[in-house]
């Protein structure tokens, strides 16, 4: 039986990790994800999990040790944020290139400078081309569920690609919410056993991990790797559905909220989703045909689902918790525009919000929807807008 608990997003992640009980964790503290390794250490000390916890001296070594551990044939996890993820950057590509099914919950945070420890997608956007599966969660429940699902997605034979479940720093990580924790046994049963394709510890069948590929081989290897990442689309759908059948909660690769008949659709990811949904409800009460499409699976990007969900819209507003410096629009908006190319000619407007923990309220989102109304009516609206930024 599941039980209802009131715990923070970091605790939700820590409990998911406890229940997964991976063979090895290598992690380094960084705000706001620090409570994850702290809780793991306590769980181990209390005999509640039996993972080998490698208390590395940096995030670079955290992910490096994860690569060594995962190549050695077991289940491996880490967790990090912001500058920690940035320090891992080099090795993220190596982990996905070696097709190692590491699961690394990331509590998303702003990148310096100036130093800021709060929620922001600069870190996870920055690594979106590293070949990892990126799954954005809207609350603690989903963070918990996605970490558990992530193990299955990463280890799916056609995928064998590392997975990054993502939650906004503080907004989710440090907010206490009510959520359902499943039975340890039920989680164990759901994730099953991991059977590695290759292992460094299989000394009878020695293999070489990490050969360097010259120009006549690198390209083929990269294209081969892409196939694994793309396979995560179907795997995510299937595993999420199985999860739903077992635990009663599923999310899909996108979530459509009152968007089927909506003319004005907001697109976003992560913790801001609750705020957007409230705004949509209030606008609907005022007779405005508003809707929301939440992208859960950001990499690989679910183009087909996004096109289907947005093709009836008269104006689209895309929320990005990051500046993609120098680009016409930020990353999610660019992806949405790319998806809609040839499928729609309506205005697709970018809204930057929440940088470095800046508040985004229901009122702000309602203003956006009003602006989308103007855009749908043919009025000129700036293609890129900054919510709650002092001029």
């Amino acid at each position, binding site marked *: 039986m599941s039980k209802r608990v009131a715990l923070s997003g970091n605790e939700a992640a820590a409990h998911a990790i406890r229940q997964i009980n991976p063979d090895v964790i290598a992690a380094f503290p960084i705000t706001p994800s620090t409570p994850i390794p702290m809780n793991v250490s306590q769980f181990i000390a209390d005999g509640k999990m039996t993972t080998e916890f490698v208390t590395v*001296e*940096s995030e670079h070594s955290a992910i490096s040790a994860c690569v060594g551990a995962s190549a050695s044939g077991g289940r491996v996890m880490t967790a990090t944020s912001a500058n920690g993820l940035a320090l891992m950057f080099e090795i993220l590509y190596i982990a996905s290139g070696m097709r190692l099914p590491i699961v690394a919950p990331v509590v998303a945070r702003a990148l310096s400078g100036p130093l800021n420890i709060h929620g922001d997608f600069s870190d996870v956007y920055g690594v979106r081309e590293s070949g990892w599966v990126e799954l954005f969660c809207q609350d603690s429940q989903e963070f918990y569920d996605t970490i558990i699902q992530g193990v299955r997605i990463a280890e799916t034979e056609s995928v064998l690609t590392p997975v990054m479940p993502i939650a906004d720093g503080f907004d989710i990580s440090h907010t206490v919410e009510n959520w359902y924790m499943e039975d340890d046994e039920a989680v164990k049963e759901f994730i099953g056993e991991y059977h590695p394709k290759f292992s460094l*510890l299989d000394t009878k069948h020695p293999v070489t991990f990490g050969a360097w590929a010259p120009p006549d081989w690198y390209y083929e290897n990269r294209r081969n790797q892409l196939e694994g990442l793309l396979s995560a689309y179907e795997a995510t759908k299937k595993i999420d559905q199985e999860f739903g059948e077992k635990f009663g909660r599923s999310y899909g690769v996108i979530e459509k909220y009152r968007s089927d008949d909506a003319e004005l659709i907001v697109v976003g990811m992560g913790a801001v989703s609750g705020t957007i949904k409230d705004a949509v409800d209030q606008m609907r009460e005022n007779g405005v045909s508003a809707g929301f499409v939440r992208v859960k699976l950001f990499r690989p990007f679910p183009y087909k689902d996004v096109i289907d969900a947005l093709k009836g819209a008269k104006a689209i507003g895309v929320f990005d918790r990051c500046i993609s410096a120098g680009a016409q629009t930020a990353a999610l908006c660019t992806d949405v525009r790319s998806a809609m190319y040839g499928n729609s000619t309506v205005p697709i407007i970018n809204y930057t919000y929440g940088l470095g923990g800046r508040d985004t309220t229901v009122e702000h989102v309602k203003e956006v929807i009003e602006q989308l109304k103007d855009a749908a009516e043919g009025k000129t609206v700036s293609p890129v807008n900054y919510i709650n930024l002092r001029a």
Partner: protein
Amino acid sequence: MAKKLSFLNKLALNKESLEGGHRLCPGCGHSIIIRMVLNTALQEGYQPVMSNATGCLEVCTGLYPYSSWNIPWIHNAFENAAATISGAEAMYRSLSRRGKLDNDKIVFIAFGSDGGTYDIGLQALSGAAERGHRFLYVCDDNEAYQNTGNQRSSATPYGTRTTTSAVGAIDPIGKKQKRKEIVEIMGAHGIYAAQASPSHWMDLIKKVKKGLKQNGPAYLNVIQPCTTGWGYDPKDTINYAKLAVETCIWPLYEIENRRSKVNVKPKNKLPVEAYLKGQKRYAHLFTPQGKETLERIQKLTDERWEFLLEREKAGF
């Protein structure tokens, strides 16, 4: 009739862990040393699992779709051979503890050159050593970043010409700083740390055995003459390693339980010229402008050697 087997005959019974057909330069010291290390491990009945930092050895032995390795081998990046092996070792402990693996013969060996060890990989190495993973770290010290074309490292000795410590019209010296004493740093972790040379192979093999027996980390620093970067005839690789020991430029010593021991004390300590001359990287020392630098190298060498002897005598 079967001939009696000597120690080396027995060593040669092992299946080579490192196959030929690799692309290392003719006369490269890397493969000589790593063959000594791995054959010793096999001789002792171990099954080595190896992590290799980016560098000459790595690029020349793992050139897709080829591999020269007959043992499980992983290359992750330049600075993280020690972190990578610590993950592998942690997985070994976890799977063994959980009853998913039963093999007490596995030993972990991480391998880097001076660039990946003294410099960019020092943090990861120190971290792994402090955490106490059971692994032998072998540094093939060729005294510069040879894979990128002989740039200076913190292992490059004073007075050495490299491509980033150039010698020219107004600079007769080359590198102006002394080398970092990495064995001291690793010994300060309270682990077994030793310096060896492929010329003194019995000493090297003894140190490998000792390192692999540790119930924790061990560090082995091995001089690796580099025919290309140092500029000498490929046939002389082991000869230069030997001269480095005989001039006391490369003292063979070890630190165990924080106490040091000088393992080889040359009966006839040769002047440093015996080692330096013939190497293109030191050609500038044998000009009128290089005289002072040459003298200083002798002085630094003597001071270091005397210090090691004194320390040993003092019992720490």
